């Protein structure tokens, strides 16, 4: 367990692979949310895993397209986590969360039920 004292958000955190408990890949850090405060420097409010956010960084239009596609698997909101949930930040970013229970895996679950399970050998 190691959290560095001093990090650069864009260099060290943005686009980093996120692992849940048992090193289960959950996605990548697609966005960082800041909270603006009067008379104090902005503070990191949350990190976000969400394909739509990532595509929006390429352009508003790509974001809209991605959002429309994501509706197929009923993915409507981004998955957000705070710094307190981060257990380790190095090559990957590990958080103390059971990946399966989050909406970060909406597409994974949708494909597993709708597609993989219906193919031979897909239930093993």
């Amino acid at each position, binding site marked *: 367990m190691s959290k560095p004292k001093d990090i650069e958000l*864009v260099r060290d955190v*943005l*686009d*980093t*692979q*996120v692992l849940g408990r048992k090193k*289960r*890949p*959950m*996605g*990548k850090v*697609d966005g960082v949310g800041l909270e603006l405060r009067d008379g104090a420097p902005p503070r990191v409010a949350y990190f976000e*895993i969400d*394909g739509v956010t*990532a595509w929006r*960084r*390429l352009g508003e239009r790509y974001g809209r397209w991605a959002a429309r596609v994501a509706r197929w698997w009923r993915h409507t909101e981004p998955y957000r986590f705070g710094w307190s949930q981060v257990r380790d930040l190095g*090559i990957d970013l590990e958080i103390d969360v059971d990946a399966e229970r989050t909406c970060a895996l909406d*597409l*994974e*679950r949708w*494909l*597993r039920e709708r*597609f*993989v*399970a219906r*193919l*031979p*050998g*897909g*239930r*093993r």
Partner: protein
Amino acid sequence: MKKILGIALGIVTSIGGFLDAGSIATSAQAGAAFGYALLWAVALGTICVIFLVEMSGRFAIASGHTITDAIRKRFGFAVLIVPFGATMLVNLLVLASELGGVCVALELATGIGFQLWAIPVAVALWLLLWVATFDVVEEGTALLGLVTLCFVVAVFTLGAEPVPLARALVVPSLPADERAHYLFLAVSIIGATIAPYLFLFYSSGAIEDKWDKSYLMPNRMIATGGMLFGAMISMAVLVVAALTLKPEGIRVEGYEQAALMLVPAFGRWGFYLFVVSLAVACFGAALELSLASAYAMAQTFGWNWGEDLKPRQAARFGTAYTAFIVLAALIVLTGLNPMKLTLFSMAITAVILPLTVVPFLVLMNDRRYMKEHVNSRFSNMIVALIVLLAAVLALVSIPLEIVGSK
């Protein structure tokens, strides 16, 4: 002992990745049309790919990242998406070429048209990926790939003269006529030799096999030995074509002409040896390519990935290669001449190489990832030069080839 076995295995597996529809098609055409003259292109591509494969193994060992994952983190999603998109598109064309190669081999063996084989072959490919583990895929293709050594045997049976052969290997020459086609073939050969999926696959394999620092030396040996071994076979294809097809004035427009090249060496069995080699090499490459593309996709988007996971544990990964195979089969079904498709896919590979290789080189020099294992200036220069040269030549020669073939 275990490591020596691992090195031997690594070298053998590289052949599976090295010899594919691309190498067979480009080498057969080059030998039949220009004799030994294009051997230098195989040599140039091989030098470059040895460096690239060694680097991708060293990168995985030193940083713990796969290349795709690291490009995303270092340059951002918005930059990664460009080489990723281009690579996926080319991978799809190449996968269609490999599937087409298997289908043509089956057509040559049975007389049933290749398009009819597209679906059965695609299903067999998919089923193997769906149920097998990484080791089965890797080692199975490796063992079967040994059949392609028959091209090397043929070189000796036919008694190739070593001196002109060695000269063509080192000294590039430009023929008096058909220069545009010569250049196009040179580019296709380089593209076939430096296939990006090869080193992307290799770095994912190093992560799946959990290589640590003790693998730095084995990695170097596997990269060099394996790529040389593979190059030897694809050079043998070129030499055999030069010795048997060129004197007869046989132009290779499709695999059916190329299939005759082993007949002078082995008689009627030569035909079947070619057919089996083609089928095995293309099927092995199709397996690696489908996996490599699914790896690239999973690593780009941060999904669960790994061939050892059951499909339901990595649903997006499994869906990715399934979709990929379906699309490639559809391309084969259109009935495009598989050999033409292969040659163009290889030339386009050469065009997009800098998109993956340049960011990769930047990473190889970044101490935050590589620590003391960064690249030497020499290896940076070699790879950058060859890749940029190939891309420029490809941009020039592809339009010329399209105009020329009409």
